[in-house]
């Protein structure tokens, strides 16, 4: 029970106790602050997108998944890392239930890398933790992601799209090595860890 008070009678606070001009001014200021924050966030995204060539990877390129192993760029002898004339490296990988081919890919640090993947059967995922590399590998299309590794070392490469009962065992890795070490070997062969 409430205690009896000797203060003047108190009732519920009426609506509109905050002056209307204060409410209107506050709302306008809040809208300006929100708009400024949104503009700042968009500016950050757009500017870093331009300066760092950072944008969602998108590549629409069809391929026949039933003939991957017979002809075209995804035949077995062409899989792995290949050095292009401009010094960049293109890595070609096939994803199939339940493995990536090749299972380990060697690439140089500090070099423009283009990953090109194709699926031979169902939808798979291509993800390199601790990097922003992340894409789906949809059968019938070539998935392409461009990046540049700053840190040397081993990157796990799990399939991150459920692809069947063996999905949990479908993973490979990318080994990022110094440029010099990579350059010594690429003139004669496609690079995968099997050649180590």
């Amino acid at each position: 029970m409430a205690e009896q008070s000797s203060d003047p009678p108190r009732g519920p606070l009426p609506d509109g106790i905050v002056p209307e001009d204060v409410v209107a001014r506050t709302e306008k200021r809040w809208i300006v602050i929100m708009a400024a924050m949104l503009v700042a966030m968009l500016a950050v995204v757009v500017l870093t997108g331009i300066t760092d060539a950072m944008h969602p990877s998108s590549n629409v390129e069809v391929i026949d998944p039933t003939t991957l192993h017979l002809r075209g760029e995804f035949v077995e002898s062409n899989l792995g890392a290949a050095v292009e004339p401009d010094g960049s490296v293109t890595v070609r990988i096939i994803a199939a239930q339940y493995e990536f081919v090749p299972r380990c890919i060697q690439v140089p640090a500090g070099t423009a890398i283009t990953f090109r993947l194709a699926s031979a059967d169902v939808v798979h995922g291509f993800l390199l933790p601790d990097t922003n590399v992340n894409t789906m590998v949809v059968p019938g299309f070539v998935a392409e992601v461009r990046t540049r590794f700053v840190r040397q070392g081993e990157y796990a490469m799990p399939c991150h799209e459920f692809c069947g009962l063996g999905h949990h065992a479908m993973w490979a890795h990318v080994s990022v090595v110094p440029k010099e070490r990579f350059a010594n070997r690429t003139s004669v062969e496609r690079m995968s860890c099997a050649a180590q």
Partner: protein
Amino acid sequence: MRIDESIQSTAHSPAHVGAPGRVDAPISSDEAARALRAGPIGAYIVAGISVALVFIAWLVFYFFVFMPRGSIG
């Protein structure tokens, strides 16, 4: 159903609820009007700090987590 009073919310108690004819609101209309003449300053400060923290957290994640992971295209 029996309710253990010690764990009940006090949100319904007269000291926290204003209602027509009730005479036990914690502050009178005049006092409230004086306090709110320039708007609910405390609420502005709480909302401002909260929004600022979210904005700063976004920037920190963008520049110190997302960007160091390397550009993609």
